[in-house]
């Protein structure tokens, strides 16, 4: 479980996050949603330890992450995987080298053990036999899947996904969502996904947190989304007339 407690974050005079407190549950897909500029990415980066909050606490289970020393932070990070918006694959390395990188850097496994683990991860994301390709030879969806493979190669306990569906077609988006969901359930990972893809919200949103102007505006699960009277949530999720009609149809007895 990851817990954000009273998180504030300012850049200069601009206050981006204002008193955010959220519990992200283990074995579930915890979503952070909100309009552009709501502070989603900043919150995700604070939770992942890439940014330091101005005030507040981040707990990884029983450990206050922000009070840890460098070595302890490194130990926690060995248990963290992250999928970046642009995949962040190393251009000069092949798919295999990209996925193997954390194994090379942090483990003393033999070459065969590493290759077995890389192949397992590639198989898990349905990219078997793509070991020797470079990121530039892959489609956006394939790059995301390689990113997922790299993020799970060290068997993480916590998985962060920054807009995993951005730039992908609806079909590939569903594929990525389902992949993240199944990996989360299989390995009992605490997964935090930052998205504004409504399909993801309704498909995999075990726990949904809506940010609005740096504040937590609503929290609930996907079944509560339809019934909620929260105006900000309705305005954000059912933004188009088409989606509003869908909501009405779904609510009709």
């Amino acid at each position, binding site marked *: 479980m990851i817990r954000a407690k009273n998180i504030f974050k300012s850049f200069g005079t601009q206050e981006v996050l204002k008193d955010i407190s959220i519990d992200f549950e283990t074995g579930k897909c915890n979503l952070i949603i909100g309009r552009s500029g709501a502070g989603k990415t900043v919150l995700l*980066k604070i939770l*992942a*330890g*890439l940014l330091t909050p101005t005030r507040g606490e981040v707990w990884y289970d029983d450990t206050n992450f922000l009070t840890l020393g460098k070595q302890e*932070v*490194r*130990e926690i*990070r*060995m248990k*963290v*995987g*992250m999928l*970046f*918006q*642009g995949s*962040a694959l*190393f*251009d000069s390395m092949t798919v295999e080298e990209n996925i193997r*990188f*954390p194994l*090379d*850097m*942090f483990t003393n496994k033999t070459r065969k053990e590493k290759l077995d683990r890389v192949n397992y991860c590639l198989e898990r994301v349905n990219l078997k036999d793509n070991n020797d390709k470079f990121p530039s030879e892959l489609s956006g969806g394939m790059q995301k899947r390689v990113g997922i493979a790299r993020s799970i190669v*060290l068997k993480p306990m916590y998985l*962060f996904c920054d807009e995993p569906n951005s730039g992908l077609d609806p079909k590939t988006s569903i594929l990525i969502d389902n992949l993240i969901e199944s990996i989360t359930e299989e390995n009992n990972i605490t997964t935090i996904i930052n998205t504004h893809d409504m399909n993801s919200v309704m498909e995999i949103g075990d726990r949904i947190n809506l940010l609005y102007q740096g504040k937590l505006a609503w929290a609930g699960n996907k079944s509560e989304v339809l019934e909620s009277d929260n105006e900000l949530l309705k305005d954000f999720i059912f933004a188009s007339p088409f989606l509003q009609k869908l909501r009405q149809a779904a609510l009709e007895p």
Partner: protein
Amino acid sequence: MISGLLYHFGQYLIMMRAALARPEKISMYWKETLRQMHDIGVGSLIIVMLISIFIGAVSAVQFAYQLDGTLVPSYYIGYVVRDLTIIELAPTITCLVLAGKVGSNIAAEIGGMRQKEHIDAMEIMGVNTAAYLITPKLVAALVMIPLLVAAASFLAIMGGYVASVPTDLVTQADYVKGLRSFFVPYNVTMMFVKAFVFAFILTTVSCYQGYFVKGGAIELGRASTNAVVVSDILILLADYIIAIIMTQ
């Protein structure tokens, strides 16, 4: 302006402290160091060769012109080309050129990694990014740049020979006599001290410019330019300081 300079200097020191931390895995750093040695050393050899030969050639021709009609013996051409090259031109000009070639390349490479979130991806894995991205480049530069400077001084002397002996500005015997006259081994030490200091400056300044880049393509271009400009200024300043210290 002073507060800005102090801010950057502080950031630079913090980055260097992180960069000199114990590596997570020596073999990974070694692999990266070898790649950088190839990029910096082999990748810069042709440009260094060309520049050195022409510098030596021009020095010889210009000095021969200065000597024309004077009582200074012509073998001084070889002597002046040798000392000019070893003491000043080989380390300084080579490193100014390398600041342009290697420095801008380092800033663009690291800055690009910052913008494409590669550095964040490594941080999340637990990699000390300052150490992994900077130390191999620094070690490679400290090994390869003095070698390039040594090669540059040799080639400049050869360039002087090619430009002055076949054109009868000086006889072969006089040029060689000049090369062997008044040789002070200490000058070679000075050359290597300069090469080490300049290599350190151009590598770390370029890494700093790339590592802390923010924004998009324009900022990346600016970081690359700053890497060259700041490195060049600091190299010339260091050149002056080393000259004062080592010639007293």
